């Protein structure tokens, strides 16, 4: 009886691992494939028989993309746009989330709902009107304009996430701080923000990654080298008759390095923040 129970549990465990491992391979496989491709010579990439592990290793692809294609410019554009987006979101979104969390004002619920509704429309629907607006105010093909466009769909997410964290910080703490001599804003900065720090980090990383990887808006709203971001830049390297697989793969690897580094630095805080939000709502 006990034997069969243990037997059953082992089968269940094996089943769990099979599912887990195959899903992991499915998710991580392409990235590993991309990494391996980036190390291959052009001749070894397109071959008669599939060559999984490269027989010869070269870093030429990395050198090529960095020196010959204006890739550093793409990366720095992406950095600037991402930083701008995060800054705008943090400054305005924190204040907005705090107001939503603490004040009862006319139209509050409708506004919160409106923020959600914005997220419900697919980006392709918004991009044409947004383009017209951007052209009208002369922000097409500028990094600031692109950051504003990102803010338009990332800010609602940021506000919703952060509001949850603010909600879970007790109101009495601010009351105490206000009696102790703080202003409302001072109480928010001194007392509530340190408490919601994990949430703030998690939400910021979330939108930073989204802004870093965004493709569609960047494609539509940037035309020149001056503001083009890396996803668009990589895509434009795909020529009509020629596909530089190795160089593209190298570009892809270089582009996800900042995300990996960022994630490694903040992952502990971020996971704490995300789970705290999940439990307390």
């Amino acid at each position: 009886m006990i034997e069969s129970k243990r037997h059953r549990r082992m089968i269940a465990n094996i089943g769990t691992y099979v599912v887990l491992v195959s899903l992991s391979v499915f998710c991580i496989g392409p990235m590993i494939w991309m990494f391996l491709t980036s190390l291959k010579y052009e001749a070894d990439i397109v071959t008669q028989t599939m060559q999984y592990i490269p027989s010869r290793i070269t870093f030429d692809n990395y050198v090529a993309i960095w020196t010959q294609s204006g890739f550093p410019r793409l990366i720095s554009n992406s950095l600037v746009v991402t930083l701008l987006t995060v800054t705008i979101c943090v400054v305005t979104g924190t204040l907005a989330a705090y107001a939503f969390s603490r004040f009862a004002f006319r139209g509050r619920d409708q506004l919160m709902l409106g923020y959600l509704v914005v997220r419900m429309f697919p980006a392709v629907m918004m991009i044409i009107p947004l383009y017209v607006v951007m052209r009208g105010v002369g922000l097409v093909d500028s990094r600031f304009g692109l950051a504003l466009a990102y803010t338009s769909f990332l800010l609602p997410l940021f506000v919703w996430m952060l509001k949850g964290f603010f909600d879970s910080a007790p109101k009495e703490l601010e009351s105490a701080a206000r009696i102790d001599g703080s202003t409302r804003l001072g109480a928010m900065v001194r007392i509530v923000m340190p408490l919601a720090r994990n949430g703030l980090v998690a939400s910021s990383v979330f939108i930073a990654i989204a802004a870093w990887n965004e493709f569609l808006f960047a494609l539509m709203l940037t035309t020149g080298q001056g503001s083009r971001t890396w996803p668009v830049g990589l895509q434009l390297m795909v020529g009509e008759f020629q596909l530089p697989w190795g160089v593209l793969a190298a570009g892809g690897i270089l582009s996800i390095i900042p995300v990996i580094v960022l994630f490694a630095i903040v992952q502990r805080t971020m996971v704490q923040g995300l789970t705290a939000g999940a439990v307390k709502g």
Partner: protein
Amino acid sequence: MATLSIKDVRKAYGSVQVLHGIDIELEDGGFLVLLGPSGCGKSILLNMIAGLDDTSGGDILIGGRSVVDLAPKDRNIAMVFQSYALYPTMSVARNIGFGLEMRGVDADKRKRAVEDAARLLQISHLLDRRPANLSGGQRQRVAMGRAIVRDPELFLFDEPLSNLDAKLRVEMRTEIKRLHERLGTSIVYVTHDQIEAMTLGTKVAVMKGGYIQQLADPRTIYERPANMFVASFIGSPAMNFLPGQVVRDADGVRFEASGVSIALLAGNPAEISERPVILGMRPEELKVAARDQASVTGVIDVVEPTGPETMVTVQVGDRSVTARVPPRFAGQRNDAIFLTVDPASINLFDPDTEQRIDI
């Protein structure tokens, strides 16, 4: 000069009126308790004194100065919260000193003030800890330390003891009373616990439904409640109510009900008309007596010895009456029991308005 004057203060949320014209004066060094069931408006009133809630009308003066347009930080008050509201990211010392820090007091002076307050509250050994590592009683002390270190004009306490266990609550109650006598600063204290109100207050405001039902010293509230709500809210076990009739005979004026006949001490018997009333008697005013002296006659229903005293539930007519008798009470269920009551201790209420009738 009064430390605190509340003048016709009102509060409304939309069309819902939650406080109706509150008037309270608190003398210098007084201890005002706002007492009432939840939802009576006592916490809102406290928050309005603190400036955390806006008033919808009326005026609040602290030390003779109108504060309704001032921010909480400019009202020269300190507050202790039900949840203690200690800043979780700061040490105990910084928690206590935060108010001084915000007011730009220099570090040396601040340190000395924090240490003095900590010594007074016996928490000197906890100054380096975080609030998360303190017990409930210790947190309570830190919260009080944060209030007293500022030396404000007025302390506000919002149900400060309700998160503590029973034993600690009694201890901290004594501590608060000692602190008040030592510092002499005026206090406004919100609670739903009538014992806290009776033991601490120099003045008690019993509130219900946004109105002050009675504002008086604890003794008066206990002995001469203004209406049946106050009478039943204060005292445990609660005051006994018996509906009956005021009747007039040759000897004077009497209260009569089934099994009850009490001569009333009336200041001016001629002015009292025969009418239906409700009699209120405190359980401890009922004393076991001989049959021929009895003014209340009934049958014992339940006998509950608690140690220092015994509670006896007596069936009188179709009503139940509780008497608080000495511990070695010998009566048993279904025995007849005869009780007397001091006529000076009884209260009469109007059955319709439930207000006290003065005789």
